[in-house]
């Protein structure tokens, strides 16, 4: 019997291993810090404790995922990779553009990229939404709340 057939909850196994990895990484990083004693914690004491605890919990989650039969175990399911990448890209594009090129350009970039993430792409809707959102956010954030945003590229000011 292959290993795959015996894993009852791939979700738990993956989550458990992730926790173990983070736990070990925490311990490794925290061992560099002064440990102190039980009476007087150094900066490293509590993180090491937590890292060990996380690794143990993660191991328990993973073992449970392999060994314990759960009838209605949820599969991990398909990853929504396209929305994930595009939404992250839209946010990052906004972050990189807002300072040099201003709110208008950053908003249009965000709307266009994120609109590619799901559903039917409609150019008309994207344009209308961009215009509406630029107007609305300028009204709320720049004119009402007075946040220090540039609306247009810095060169124009």
């Amino acid at each position, binding site marked *: 019997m292959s290993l795959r057939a015996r894993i009852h909850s791939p979700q738990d196994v993956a989550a458990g291993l992730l926790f173990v990895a983070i736990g070990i990484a*925490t311990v490794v990083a925290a061992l560099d810090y*002064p440990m102190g004693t*039980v009476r007087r914690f150094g900066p490293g004491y509590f*993180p090491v404790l937590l890292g060990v605890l996380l690794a143990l*919990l993660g191991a328990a989650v993973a073992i449970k995922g392999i060994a314990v039969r759960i009838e209605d175990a949820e599969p991990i399911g398909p990853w*929504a990779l396209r929305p994930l990448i595009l939404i992250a890209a839209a946010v990052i594009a906004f972050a*990189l553009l807002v*300072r040099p090129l201003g709110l208008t350009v950053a908003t249009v970039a965000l709307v266009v990229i994120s609109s590619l993430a799901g*559903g039917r792409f409609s150019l008309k809707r994207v344009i209308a939404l961009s215009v509406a959102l630029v107007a609305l956010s300028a009204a709320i954030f720049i004119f009402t709340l007075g*946040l220090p945003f540039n609306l247009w590229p810095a060169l124009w000011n």
Partner: protein
Amino acid sequence: MELIGNLALGFGVALSPMTLLYCLIGVTAGTLIGVLPGIGPIATVGMLLPITFHLPPVQAIIMLAGIYYGAMYGGSTTAILLKLPGTAASAVACIEGYPMAQQGRAGPALVMTTLASFFGACVAIIIVGAFAPPLAQFALEFGSPEFFSLMLVGLIAAAVLAHGSLLKGLAMAVLGLILGMVGQDVSTGFPRFTFGLGELYEGVKFVIVVVGLFGLAEIVHNIGLGDKREIYAKKVPLRELIPLRRDLRVSFWPMVRGTGIGAVIGILPGAGPAISAFASYAVEKRIAKDPSEFGKGSMAGLVAPEAANNSTAQTAFIPTLTLGVPGDATTAIILGAMLIHGIVPGPKIVTEAPELFWGLIASFWIGNLMLLVLNLPFIGLWVRLLSIPYQILFPSILLFVCIGVFSLNNEPADVIMAAAFGIIGYVFLKLGCEAAPLLLGLILGPMVEENLRRSLQLSRGDPMIFLTRPISLTFLIAGVFLILLVVVPALRKPRKDPTIAAGSKES
């Protein structure tokens, strides 16, 4: 009558025009997102959080609280009309409310849930006003060991109530504590887990984590699911809203019972409105004369949980304000917001910041009154909002999130970090790990460490200090009891997870 004098002080604060405005914005936004499925109260409070930093503290907190309990009202509207709960706490409203809508009684169902919500909230507000000060007085005697044990119970409760397995919930709580360690150590100033990035010296910014883990991850997840909403609701004419006298009569005692159950659950640290709605539904079903009515549109089964979740949404502020240990993820965010505003919740808040404490309580009442007014005549409007396509909704939300995070410090790196937490949050979502315990851990992390450190200093390194002090021991026993509550039935019947039955997928 000290309570009356205090309430007068509170109303003085809450009735100022600007405060009323922010309260109105809060409850309207809360109802709005409660109505829109797929965007939960945690995500919304998180998204609006950055904007509140530009407001004075009292108004900021009042607005955030308004979103929280406003969402409880709005969530039941979609639950009844579409069988789509806007929030986890209103999932129960589907069970009884949707059949009523199918029978053509959507109007009375909507009105009675609104009235039940108002009733539950009003009674609970009085409970908060009456019980928070004595509890704060009691908590003044707490030392480090008591606070450590209390926070431990709060974290365990959050893990127990999280959707999915207890072990994963506990792991997420521990991970949150670890994230809370990032930055300079409170007592030595030693930088930890900063990877040489100056950005991280002050710790992982809580707002960024909330926006990423809850807001962005949820948007990605929802797009992945595709737009499957089907508008069942037709217009609800005003005259159809009037409930029958019979509806009022059969609702009264369930509302009272729901309020009571909700109030008790709200006071427990770590337990939120979702759990209280389910608990009160279970109680109504058990004591009903005719249990067969349940599931087919029972008025008692609809109003009791509704009163309960609103009652919990109010009393959850008792532990949040007086002990500094939040009741659920949303109150955890509000607690985080207070800390950012320099308000440290704890036993001293009632005496040291009475205008905040009583102003908040008075604003709760005003906010609930606003909700009553917003909900009854405008139900048709809220229903129409459901037809906004998601393709318009999510770019808009995304933009407001980005602007909010960027405006914290005018720092593009913050926005990029939020995107990173969005990806992390999506991975956790796919692996069935709920982020709520992590959030609680992140906020409590430095406090847990500090109290543990001080306790062990006090006892010269002897961990028995947590067991020899009676209050601390009581908390720890409560924590063990909570774990047994999940573990014992799970051992007896391994395939069914009791927390799934509670359906506390708060988002």
